[in-house]
């Protein structure tokens, strides 16, 4: 599945997007964050406070409990500051 990162999540991880294949027991957004955190220092830094991280599946806002099965594109980003 494709992951996309924005703003300081992108900067801390050092990537704007990547393709990953998490194991089958990674079923929710929250579990995906835990799995990503183990991928390296940048990930650990980006997700150090998981509560502030927002996520979207296929361009729809979702919560940490959302299941990722069937997702085409998952995005992680900080709280939004548009307008």
């Amino acid at each position, binding site marked *: 599945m494709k992951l*996309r990162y*924005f*703003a*300081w999540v992108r900067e801390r991880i050092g990537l704007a997007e990547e393709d990953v294949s998490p194991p089958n027991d990674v079923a929710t957004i929250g579990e995906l964050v835990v799995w990503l955190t183990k991928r390296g220092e940048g990930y650990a830094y980006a997700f150090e406070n998981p509560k502030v991280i927002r996520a*979207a599946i296929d*361009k*729809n*806002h*979702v*919560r940490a409990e959302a299941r990722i099965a069937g997702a085409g594109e998952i*995005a992680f*980003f*900080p*709280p*939004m*500051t*548009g*307008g």
Partner: protein
Amino acid sequence: MTTTIKLQREAFDVGGEIELLSKGRTDIGAVVTFTGICRGDENARPIAALTLEYYPGMAEAEIARHVEEAQARWPLLGVTVIHRYGRLAPGELIVLVVTASSHREAAFAAAEFLMDYLKSRAPFWKQVETADGKTVSKSWVEAKSTDDAAAERWAAPLPHREAAK
């Protein structure tokens, strides 16, 4: 209902957008615009510029969904939302919301609703550049809890609202 949603790097013309929405129409009695401008300071510190990042595809879709929700809530005759991205200097226009209705209440309420939404829920992120002497430093603008609270005042249940919001 005339709906225009644009995400762009280029500047926009407020008067021109109002005219595009209302010219030649005699059903519109009220037009409200909100223009957001890049200020020269952020948290009392002078800034050199603002850089806006957004999530292409999601931003357009999310704005469109909220324009539809505004239409469902108020009798609107037209809505225009333009949001710029990229690097903007102080004094430059960032965002424009135009709402048109036969009467003022709907136009005001819908413009406030859309701005509250854009501030706290649309996938945009602002980075601030400060210049102290020769050192340029960049930092991401932190989300304001007052913006969340402003967005939440519209959360009263409506039949079509998704539980996720």
